[in-house]
Each structure stands twice: as structure tokens, then as C-alpha cells.
């Protein structure tokens, strides 16, 4: 196995660990709320045993809170499942709008903790390329991680996909702090390894406050 393969493997595992760690934290938060509501329900029954009436309205509110958290946890588990399956096929047709939305969902909590809002701008028509889906998700995350430190005043990172003559381009926009950040360390070894594996190119446009990823239409097998 070459050094480059090791770098991609290690980066992929780090990405997988980071995302599943963040999502399991989210599930724990949902479970904690369910746990407190179950505890409150138990408190109510103890009070009822001592002759205090139970307010039906409160019970309804508790049930609604539990349902809300079950739905939230279910959504997170669905995302985790989809993420796990993104490694199934090495190369597949990928709709880039969907990929950007998916990476934004995956990194939602990590962005929120940094006070950053992610905005995916959907194009008029779908942009599709044949590529290594998991590697692409990993590369978009690494760019996003760098971009979140370079966001402007409103702390929003825009993401959009555009069709090009030879494939597609992904843009991370509204990075007003790009010029102040040292860009010599980016793209680093990990990003470069993934760019090679995806036959992609990365450009940093400080004037437009954007990071641009150029992807071929078909990466081949």
C-alpha cells in the first residue's frame, strides 16, 4: 500500500469518526430530553399516588416533547445510515446538490457550535458527476472546516454546485475572511491526496471570497 493510500485511509477514518461522534452526541441530547420527560412523568405518578391530580394538558405536552425527540433521533440515525452506505460503491453517479445538502446536514452541529450557518444554494437543474462519493464528502468537509474559520461577519458559508463544460464545480462562498487567513497550509496533504484521488482541482479566489472545487464529469473506474 502506498503512502498516498494510507493518507486517504487515515483521513477517511478521521472524517468518519468526527461525523459519527458529532451525530452520536446529538442522539445523546435527544435521549437526555426523553429521559427527563420520562422522569417528570414518573414524578407526576408519585404525586398522583399522594392524591394530587394529574393535569391532562401537561401529559399531552410531555408526550409531544417525547415524540419530537424520537423524530429528531430517527432523523439523525437515518443520516448516519446514509453516511455508512456512502462507502458501499467506490464510484457512482452523484447529484452534487444532494451531496452538498448531505455534508451540510452531517456537519450541522459542528457548524452550529462554531456559530456558523450553512446555506446550500440549489441550482435550477441537477448537476451530476460520476465520482467517489465518500472521498468527495470528505473533501467537501475538509474545505468546509477551513472555510468556517474564514467566514465573514454574518458567519454564513454558502455552498453551491454548477455545471461546467467538462464536469462540475463546487463553490464555498461568502468567505470574507479568506484574505486574512494564511492559505499556505491549505490545501494540505490530506486535501491534496483527496484531490488526486478525485482527479479534481482546488482554487482559492480571495477576491470573490470563494473556494472552488473543479470535478471531472466522470472519474472512471
Amino acid at each position: 500500500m502506498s503512502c498516498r493510500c494510507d493518507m486517504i485511509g487515515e483521513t477517511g477514518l478521521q472524517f468518519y469518526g468526527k461525523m459519527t461522534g458529532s451525530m452520536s452526541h446529538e442522539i445523546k441530547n435527544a435521549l437526555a430530553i426523553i429521559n427527563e420527560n420520562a422522569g417528570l412523568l414518573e414524578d407526576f405518578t408519585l404525586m398522583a399516588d399522594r392524591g394530587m391530580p394529574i393535569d391532562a394538558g401537561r401529559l399531552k405536552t410531555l408526550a409531544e416533547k417525547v415524540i419530537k425527540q424520537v423524530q429528531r433521533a430517527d432523523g439523525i440515525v437515518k443520516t448516519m445510515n446514509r453516511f455508512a452506505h456512502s462507502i458501499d460503491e467506490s464510484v457512482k453517479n452523484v447529484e452534487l446538490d444532494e451531496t452538498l445538502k448531505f455534508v451540510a446536514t452531517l456537519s450541522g452541529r459542528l457548524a452550529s457550535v462554531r456559530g456558523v450557518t450553512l446555506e446550500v444554494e440549489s441550482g435550477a437543474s441537477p448537476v451530476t458527476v460520476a465520482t467517489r462519493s465518500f472521498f468527495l464528502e470528505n473533501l467537501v468537509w475538509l474545505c468546509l472546516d477551513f472555510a468556517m474559520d474564514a467566514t465573514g461577519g454574518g458567519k454564513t458559508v454558502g455552498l453551491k454546485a454548477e455545471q461546467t463544460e467538462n464536469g462540475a464545480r463546487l463553490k464555498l462562498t461568502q468567505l470574507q475572511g479568506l484574505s486574512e487567513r494564511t492559505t499556505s497550509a491549505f490545501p494540505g496533504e490530506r486535501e491534496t491526496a483527496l484531490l488526486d484521488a478525485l482527479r479534481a482541482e482546488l482554487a482559492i479566489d480571495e477576491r470573490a471570497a470563494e473556494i472552488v472545487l473543479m470535478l471531472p464529469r466522470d472519474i472512471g473506474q
Partner: protein
Amino acid sequence: MTEKVLLVDDEEDFIETLGERMRARGMDVSTTTSTKDALKKAQEGSFDAIVLDLMMPEMDGLEVLKILKEKRPELQIILLTGQATLEKGIEAMKLGAMDFVEKPANLDALTEKIRNAQAKKMILVEKQTEEKIKEIIQGKGW
């Protein structure tokens, strides 16, 4: 003696319900979903314990812990988290956290830790008062 507690977590539904259950057990509970507000409240109020979520927007829980302990060393802070790694736990204890609780929390266990926090704080405050009195007496030359 009523325990005065500040709950800090960005999950509003969580602190709302936990707060209600703690109040039903006779505790005096304040809540906030913002770390900035938590720092303000901690400066203004004399809490026996602060139950603080480790992963918060605006400011990391460990950062909040560091600021609080610098300003008010007597504050007893219990860190609450859904992401309990050993490294984070050790870091938190080094920064002066009193204890570390993993979500979902067991209320009886948390109550016990809050009572311990109250007792610890009382000893620290008594010690501080004693030292202040000593300083005054020595300063006046009595």
C-alpha cells in the same frame, strides 16, 4: 438548606424539564441556553453549583469553565455532556471542574453531586471569610 443551581445547556427542552424536576425536589434553579448569559448570571448570583454542558455554541464548555474558575474560584462546576471522552474529562478536572456527568443524567446521582458541591463551596467560602478577617486584623494591627 436549599441548593442554588444554575443549569447551562443549549437544549432548551432539556434544561426546562430537568429544572422543573429539580425544583420539585426543593432546589432553587435558574436556567440559561447561552454561555454569555451564564457568565453574567454566575457573576451576579451565588450559586452552590453550576451544571454546564461541555459542547455549547458561542463558547466551548471548557472555555466557560476556565473563565468562571478564574473569576470565582469557589464556584463548583459539574460538567454535563453527551460526548464523554476520557481526555475531555481529565482536561475538565485539571481546569477545576468538580465532577463530570454523562447524558442522559441520573437525577439522583446529579442531586448527590450538587449536594457535595454545596458542602464543598461552603467550606471554601468559610475559609475565604476567615482569611479576609485575618487580613483585616493584621492590617489594622489589633
